[in-house]
């Protein structure tokens, strides 16, 4: 059971974060939106990919689906319904991907997700050009930056809560067992395919919602904007840097990397993907299990 002290701490942290827009400039709120968006993406990504070690490269496919759903339906449907619809579409795509790959070896999943964003991008482009005859779309929703931020903060809080609950539940244990040895997990009675599927759909649905909530920020949307592969890449680096096996890991990785990314894209707009690529390779070599695990290792080493 959580102690009352830690519950109080979380409540204070969330309300401080929620109050932040009242004290910040528009630029500051913009940063908070980006940061909470990426923290949520990385946390949701790690929900599935962390324990199972099935590396999903499709983050932006779902993110983009969310954004596009909002762009298409925001004028015809009430906003909460649009969010629900986005979640449903993202979840359905994830279910199709999962059902066709997750009963096979992990590499099929990676391959499928690797090209998925490009597939969705090309298909949406084709649809818009040939069927609806418009490539770009405008989103007119009466949201200011802080409204978007609050929604993201709420989604992040829920995501963390889900992660925490999973960590204490049967399904959390099942995921860890699957990550260690699928065959042993199956012989112990775990329905390996179903467990992976449920978690992948959950993770993808949250990612879709991040895209949907952030969409109004752009005002103008087209496939090349919302299906930008850098989003998948950043999410992956962030989760790995912090440590995808721990609840707080992705957040620990996402905050500094987001700031770094902001700085890089402001100062070296053409070179950031080179920097990030190199940084990412370095992370895989130096701390394959993330900063938190590294720190723990150092602490243990010092204690001995």
């Amino acid at each position: 059971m959580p102690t009352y002290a830690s519950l109080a701490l979380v409540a204070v942290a969330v309300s401080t974060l929620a109050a932040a827009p009242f004290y910040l400039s528009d630029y500051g709120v913009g940063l908070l939106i980006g940061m909470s968006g990426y923290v949520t993406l990385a946390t949701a990504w790690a929900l599935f990919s962390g324990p199972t070690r099935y590396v999903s490269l499709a983050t932006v496919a779902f993110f983009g689906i969310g954004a596009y759903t909002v762009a298409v339906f925001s004028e015809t449907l009430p906003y909460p319904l649009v969010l629900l619809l986005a979640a449903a579409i993202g979840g359905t795509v994830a279910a199709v991907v999962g059902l066709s790959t997750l009963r096979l070896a992990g590499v099929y999943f990676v391959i499928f997700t690797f090209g998925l964003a490009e597939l969705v991008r090309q298909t949406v482009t084709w649809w818009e050009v040939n069927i609806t005859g418009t490539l770009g779309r405008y989103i007119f929703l009466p949201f200011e930056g802080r409204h978007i931020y609050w929604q993201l903060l709420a989604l992040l809080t829920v995501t963390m809560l889900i992660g925490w609950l999973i960590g204490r539940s049967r399904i959390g244990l099942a995921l860890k067992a699957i990550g260690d040895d699928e065959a042993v997990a199956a012989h112990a009675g775990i329905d390996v395919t179903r467990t992976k599927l449920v978690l992948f759909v959950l993770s993808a649905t949250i990612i879709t919602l991040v895209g949907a909530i952030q969409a109004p920020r752009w005002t103008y949307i087209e496939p090349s904007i919302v299906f930008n592969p850098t989003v998948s890449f950043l999410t992956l680096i962030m989760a790995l840097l912090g440590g995808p096996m721990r609840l707080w890991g992705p957040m620990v990785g996402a905050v500094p990397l987001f700031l770094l990314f902001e700085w890089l894209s402001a100062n070296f707009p053409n070179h950031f993907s080179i920097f990030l690529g190199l940084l990412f390779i370095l992370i895989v070599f130096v701390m394959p299990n993330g900063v938190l695990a590294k720190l723990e290792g150092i602490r243990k080493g010092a204690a001995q």
Partner: protein
Amino acid sequence: MFEHIVNGLVLGGTYALIAMGLTMQYGIARIMNLAFGDTIIVACFGTYLLVSAFALSPLLALLILVPGAFVFSYAVFLALMQPLVARAPNREALEVDSILVTFGLLFVIQGILLVIFGGAYTSYSYLNVGVNVLGTTVSANRLLAFVMALVFGGALMFVLFRTRWGMMLRAVELAPESAPLYGIDVDRVARYAFAVGGALAASGGVVVSMYQTFTATAGVVFTMKALIVVILGGKGSLIGALIAGIVLGIVETLVAAYIDPGLTLAATYAVFLAILLFRPTGLFGSAA
């Protein structure tokens, strides 16, 4: 119709060629290289540069780019992959690590290409004249591309099936655990297989650039197609890759001709989905 079949064969020949390269890297060197398609794109731009700036023929570009890619891939293997191989406790761990590192590499290569060439569609004109083949007109560059794919593919087959070195490669592919018992240095074979895979990718890039436009960000699509061809053909089967490449080339060409060119990747994915659902071991792979 016949025209599309011929064009499909040309495209399929190229796919088969690059899929053979990927088979060398994944089947023999055991590295899942997500930056594979970016090697192809680098070769495309390299050819473009040599053709447009130095007025070289693409055939001469081949002589520079293919050895260049061999050396580059060899260096990548030594610097990035060998340490991963050394630290991996098992095959799965190596797979995850190599996926991650080559995913990073992909962004590095793509970033460099974007800085140098920008993000636009690029192409050059070479042998852009029609040739009559059995009653239909095919452009000469496509024909040459097809012949080159055949020559490279044939040469690889010859090496693999008729030389001692090729026998070593196949031994490592079929039985990596027991190959050392026969005095085969598996690490060395892996290094060379990875480098040869890179060289094949580059040759595929030169071939592709002769008849298609390309962009700095198209590497992902080539990697996907090569992977799908490898899986469709059955992992490790070169004959399978050949046939699967041609199947995919024809499917794509027909979709582009009769449905919509914007849906070729969707068609590729449909093929992929069908294999995953009905025959994950591939058309020619043995059920393990």
